[in-house]
């Protein structure tokens, strides 16, 4: 029987919760504008997203009621569930005769590559928490996590979704560097990685495949179209000016020059309608949540908690940076969403699960009393 430790409630982090609710609210508010219904439009994206978001909050409270240490164990079924889902999506994609990254669940399409990112965070946190090496990890120490990352990496790469699969590498690199590597391991990894890349480029890939790798970066659109999208996004952001054009009044966003205006380019709509001041406020709150996440890591009672907190922050941070860089014209269109802001159920659920883990670590920063939580 499970009894709630009173201290769990005392340690519930109101500030973190407030930040999450605030960002979710702004995201929905923005999504309403970005997916302004047209005459005769059926089920609008913002409505769908609201329903999923409500579900996410339920999930949030379910997750924080269990000790995060269970993830040491639950991680394995989670890992195999994700791998099985990825295989299924790949198989469906292969039989459908084209790229398919999702499994249709009727109400919405489940995209297993999204939770795969969180799954990697938990897997690595669990591994590095349990295997502690003084003086930094050697190359052989990180071979098991490298292998654990490689399987979903390849499955996502062949979908094909280079953007998301590179995300896995970024998470792996961030977390591995965080736990500290030996210089020799750095040297081996960098030379192996670049060697494999150069070899693949010159010997394994045929010209048409190289071209495909280039379009991997940008699966939905050709290059001419991509430049157009980036330009239009920059115009949208720039035309917001200092104070913005006002809610629901952004001409650029509502011209719908971007087919993904409520997904990857959702933040351009915010930038246009709220201007630099709106962006400043939003980004301070958004990054405030990330800093708070780091604070959660610093106050955690054990290594696993710190690594989990760091991993979740990393996961959200890199996706946000890549998405914002794309919107501002620093990066090509790579299909990475802005967590919580872009439309998409799989991404939202993954991010909220990550934040629930963060809250979980925060709530259990004390050492439990004997026999109370069992």
């Amino acid at each position, binding site marked *: 029987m499970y009894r709630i430790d009173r201290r769990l409630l005392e340690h519930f982090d109101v500030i973190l919760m407030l930040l999450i609710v605030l960002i979710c609210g702004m995201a929905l508010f923005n999504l309403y504008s970005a997916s302004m219904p*047209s005459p005769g*439009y059926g089920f609008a994206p913002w409505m769908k997203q609201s329903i999923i978001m409500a579900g996410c909050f339920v999930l949030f409270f379910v997750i924080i009621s269990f000790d995060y240490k269970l993830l040491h164990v639950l991680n394995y079924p989670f890992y195999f569930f994700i791998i099985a889902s990825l295989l299924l999506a790949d198989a469906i994609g292969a039989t459908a005769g084209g790229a398919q990254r999702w499994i249709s669940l009727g109400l919405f399409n489940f995209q297993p590559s999204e939770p795969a990112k969180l799954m990697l965070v938990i897997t690595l946190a669990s591994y590095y928490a349990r295997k502690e090496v003084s003086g930094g990890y050697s190359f052989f120490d990180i071979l098991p996590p490298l292998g654990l990352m490689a399987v979903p990496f390849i499955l996502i790469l062949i979908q094909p979704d280079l953007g998301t699969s590179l995300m896995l590498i970024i998470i792996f690199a961030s977390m591995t560097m965080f736990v500290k590597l030996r210089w020799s391991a750095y040297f081996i990894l960098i030379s192996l990685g670049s060697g494999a890349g150069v070899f693949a480029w010159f010997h394994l890939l045929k010209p048409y495949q190289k071209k495909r790798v280039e379009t991997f970066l940008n699966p939905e659109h050709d290059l001419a179209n991509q430049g157009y999208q980036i330009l239009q996004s920059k115009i949208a*952001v720039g035309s917001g*000016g200092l104070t913005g054009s006002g809610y629901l009044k952004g001409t650029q966003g509502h011209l*719908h*020059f971007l087919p993904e205006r409520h997904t990857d380019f959702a933040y351009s709509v915010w*930038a246009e309608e709220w201007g630099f001041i709106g962006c400043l406020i939003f*980004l301070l709150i958004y990054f405030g949540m990330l800093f708070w996440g780091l604070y959660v*890591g610093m106050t955690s009672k054990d290594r696993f908690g710190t690594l989990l907190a760091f991993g979740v922050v990393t996961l959200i941070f890199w996706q946000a940076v890549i998405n914002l860089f794309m919107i501002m014209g620093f990066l090509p269109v790579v299909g990475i969403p802005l967590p919580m802001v872009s439309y998409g159920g799989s991404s939202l659920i993954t991010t909220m699960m990550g934040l629930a883990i963060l809250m979980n670590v925060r709530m259990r920063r004390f050492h439990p009393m004997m026999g109370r939580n*069992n």
Partner: protein
Amino acid sequence: MKFSLKLPVVKRGQFEERDDASLNILQKRLIGVGVIIVFFLVVILLRFYFLQVTKGDEYKRRAYNNRIRISTVAPPRGHILDRKGREIVTNRPSFNVALVREDSRDIDGTLKKLGPVLGMSEEELWGRVREASGTPLYLPVTLKEDIDWQTLAYLEYNNREFSGVRIEVQPVRVYPYGDLAANVIGYLGSISKKQLEDADRSIYSGGDLIGKRGLERLRESDLRGEKGKRYTEVNARGFEQQMFDGIEPMPGRDLQLTLDVDLQQIAENYMLAGEKSGAVVVLEVNTGRVLAAVSTPTIHIADFVGGISQKNWKALMENEHKPLMNKVVQGTYPPGSVYKMVTALAGLARGVINENTSLFCPGYYRFGNRTYRCWKHSGHGMVNLRQALGQSCDVFFYQVGQWVGVDGLAKYARKLGLGQQTGIEMEYEKSGLVPTKAWKQKVKKRKWQEGETLSVAIGQGFNLMTPLQIASMTATIANGGKLYRPQLVEKVIDPEGKVVEQFTPELKSELKGFDHFFQLIRLGMEEVIEGKRGTARRLHINGMRFAAKTGTAQVVKVAQYRGLRDDEIPYKYRDHGWFTCYAPAENPEISVTVLVEHGLHGGSGAGPVARAVLKHYFAKRLKEGTLSDQE
């Protein structure tokens, strides 16, 4: 409370780390991480400041003026030509009225005004708009296709009245010869949801036309071409301001067929005029090229333009003449006496008969305790192979079949290409059925009855053949044993006139050492036309000898219809009529095969069609008399 969670439980001490010093080091590192995050935040904010504040006014101006739109331009589809380059299918521009919802300031008002101009009700127009509700607003919604010149002129002149309304030019199919060869060429239709899901989205998008049937479908990738792009700037009122250079659409590749429009037309008209449903195939015997492939009644392509109505489709499906079927390859029929060539070849090859074999036909043949009748109840008397073929004597072939056995017949039927697909470029080709003992055991779970061999020997029983198989068999007999893959497409030509793909005759197999046997069979077939008692002697053409075989395929063996006049038998129980021939007899060039469904007799129902085709094909030489001086 008995409630308990089945989750693994973390025991105290499990996974606990007690090394506080190392935890401290790790947690201190998070400060460094924070510094990195601050760095990125500053970069992002600086960039936003640059775009929105420093350059804000410039972007505002661009946002106001620069509303560039990309629209796709449909490519003209490849033409379909006959062997002489005459256009069977081509394109013309169709002017469509479309609405760009986002550019229209008042959709309701615009549609109200448009209704009377287009002759459509407001409801209909809204229906079109609603159908497109899932698509981005900047994409045009087609309100009406193919408007006439007056409407076009009116809309262009009064374009200020209709904000957000565009005229789009789209190539549409034109069929200069009407429904000619419609069942072979097929038709286009809007891409279905299912097809769209499976399609390459860079090539197809919703509302595109795609080949649904026939060559339009099979050769879709050649015919479709590549879409172009057009960039337009739109002002705040929703009118197109200016057009920028886009990417020109790339027209599809043309298909040149082996068909000859004249022959196709003659055969088709003859069949249609006589209200005959069935098929006609004309082949070049020495190459396998298809000169005509007719299936009647044909579909009416006009019914399919813009999507066929449920009612029309149902009517087509239920029509007992089966207009949707391409009977050339999809219709399978018992071959009737046309099969006697196979029986003859089997008998000759097995050595059970030769040119001197004569058998007596009293008008019936007794086998076991049954009597098998010859079609001529009074009997043919003594007949040799030539006479037996010429007069289509059943009794002769009953005996040959019995001597060879059903598996022997099947062996030679297969050598002549029966019971297998010919491999022509047509959809859903049937392979027909050549029965064997093993087949019956496996499929019918019954032992083969010797009596059934007799039915098979004269082309009844389980035998099923497509008109194309019979045509190909006739050509093989005429050319002395060469089995070609029937060829429908001659070449694929790109928009610059370059031949991308050239097809040449493809020899599938060759029967060697049978020259003499084929010679004997050809003499028998010549007897059909030229002999005094030939079953189709009335079809003789002055100035040219040719060879043929008639066939009547029983549909049902119902005693109640025996002795009735032809027109008293219900249509669906009437016999099928076959006629297959090649010409000229001495130096064969083409073969013509005609099947008339429920046409009663081969000679009278199907023969005249073949004769008309031959007369047209050889018209010039018949007039000059150059064909007969070989006699």
